[in-house]
């Protein structure tokens, strides 16, 4: 496959061509081989520095990027900040410029404000990977979901994929709409009306408030974490009500295809969006997602900083 990779940043999948997404997956495949060796390290990013600039708490994504960088022999540095807004102290721009003065090659940014990485990309000269901005996108998650499904099902086109949960606030959904929806899968988005905006149908996905309709004959069911820390005003009456009508249990899951798989970006609220037994069942690909995640993130780091100045 000949794809000319000219990207300086990975801010979102919205402007990725299908060929580019396939190219990243292909690169991830090669990276995954490195992860099967005894010595899980290659010198490709030796001497390069990646900084995890996380303004939102996250252990798994940050660790995933850290491991990915280290496997490529990069130096990975973690910077966490609880503050995000201008009024609370140092502005986002000042923080980023300070870090940039230490000459990292890549900034990996997670921030609660949609558009924060896009904003920074106008002011810093190193590469930026968006590790999640507000409700906008989480491109590496979108790609690892794609990779996981391709590995589980052998293809993506023609599959019915149900995504259930807080669609309104989910950056994972928005990235998946690009990585899965534009690759030929049929997407069904499900949640209570307060959390599942009909506008999403403009992307070609279907929106339903009935989980049984979403899961029926599905090949893949992706459950989203109900974000308790984000709801400031009630979008549904109680967690009990939510898990009864929108949680995935054996009964609902039996409507899916026999070989359907379950995915979840994590962390799981066991017993709320996903029942305990399903989280660990044979059809769960949740841990595969984590595995695929490291390979995909290695691919992104490599493509952005793999020794060449060509993209700048």
């Amino acid at each position, binding site marked *: *496959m000949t*794809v*000319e*990779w000219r990207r300086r940043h990975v801010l979102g999948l919205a402007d990725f061509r299908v060929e580019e997404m396939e190219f990243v997956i*292909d*690169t991830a*495949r*090669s*990276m995954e*081989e*490195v992860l099967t*060796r*005894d*010595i899980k*390290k*290659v*010198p*490709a990013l030796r001497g390069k520095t990646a900084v995890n600039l996380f303004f939102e708490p996250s252990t798994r994504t940050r660790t995933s990027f850290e491991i990915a960088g280290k496997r*490529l022999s990069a130096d990975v540095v973690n910077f966490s900040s609880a503050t995000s807004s201008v009024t609370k102290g140092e502005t986002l721009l000042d923080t980023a410029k300070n870090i940039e003065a230490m000459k990292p090659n890549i900034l990996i940014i997670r921030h609660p404000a949609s558009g924060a990485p896009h904003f920074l990309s106008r002011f810093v000269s190193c590469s930026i990977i968006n590790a999640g901005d507000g409700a906008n996108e989480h491109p590496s998650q979108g790609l690892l979901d794609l990779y996981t499904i391709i590995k589980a099902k052998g293809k993506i086109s023609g599959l019915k994929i149900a995504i259930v949960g807080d669609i309104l606030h989910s950056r994972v959904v928005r990235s998946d709409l690009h990585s899965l929806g534009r690759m030929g899968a049929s997407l069904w988005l499900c949640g209570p009306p307060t959390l599942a905006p009909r506008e999403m149908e403009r992307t070609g996905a279907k929106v339903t408030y009935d989980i049984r309709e979403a899961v029926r004959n599905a090949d893949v069911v992706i459950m989203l974490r109900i974000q308790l820390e984000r709801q400031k005003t009630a979008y549904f009456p109680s967690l009990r009500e939510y898990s009864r009508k929108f949680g995935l249990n054996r009964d609902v899951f039996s409507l899916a295809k026999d070989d359907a798989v379950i995915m979840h970006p994590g962390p799981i609220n066991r017993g709320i969006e996903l029942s305990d037994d399903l989280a660990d069942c044979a059809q769960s690909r949740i841990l595969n997602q984590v595995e695929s995640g490291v390979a995909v993130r290695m691919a992104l780091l*490599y*493509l952005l900083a*793999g*020794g*060449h*100045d*060509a*993209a700048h």
Partner: protein
Amino acid sequence: MKKVGKKVILDAKGMERVLSRLTHEILEKNKGAEDLVLVGIMSGGVPLSKFIKEKVRAIEGVDVPAGYVDITLYRDDLSRAGYQPRLKRTEIPFSIDEKKVILVDDVLFTGRTIRAAMDALIDFGRPKNIQLVVLIDRGHRELPIRADYVGRNVPTSRNETVDVMVQGSREEWKVLLNESTPARGNQ
């Protein structure tokens, strides 16, 4: 660079003879095929190592394990590459510990590819020794690397290229020497 002339310096039959001779040399020097493993360097070395594997089978009746290595992640010249180096695959589905690894490549030039391949192999295990067989040695070494088995020595100037065409069927295999106008500046 404008290609001025292409010369066939080895045709399919010629390649067959050279590869046969190389296989005999390998077997002679190692006193047989015991503990030998073949590792072809992606991409040009892979069809050649397959050929050698078949030849060993024909001569000794033994199936030598063969794998291939992609050295892209070990290159030292990525900063100078003006393009995005595409990753290929590495597959060495056997242990190389205590084995005699026969590294197979099509053209030996600066030696940097071989250095990268050795780095990759060391990450896979601890071979007894590593021997290098190349079809063409075109000179201009930049590192102290030498091949143990050489098909043809082809002295070249820096702005010529040697292309080993081993895609497609064996009847179409050939080695081309491309003369070109001098490159502008240093490469």
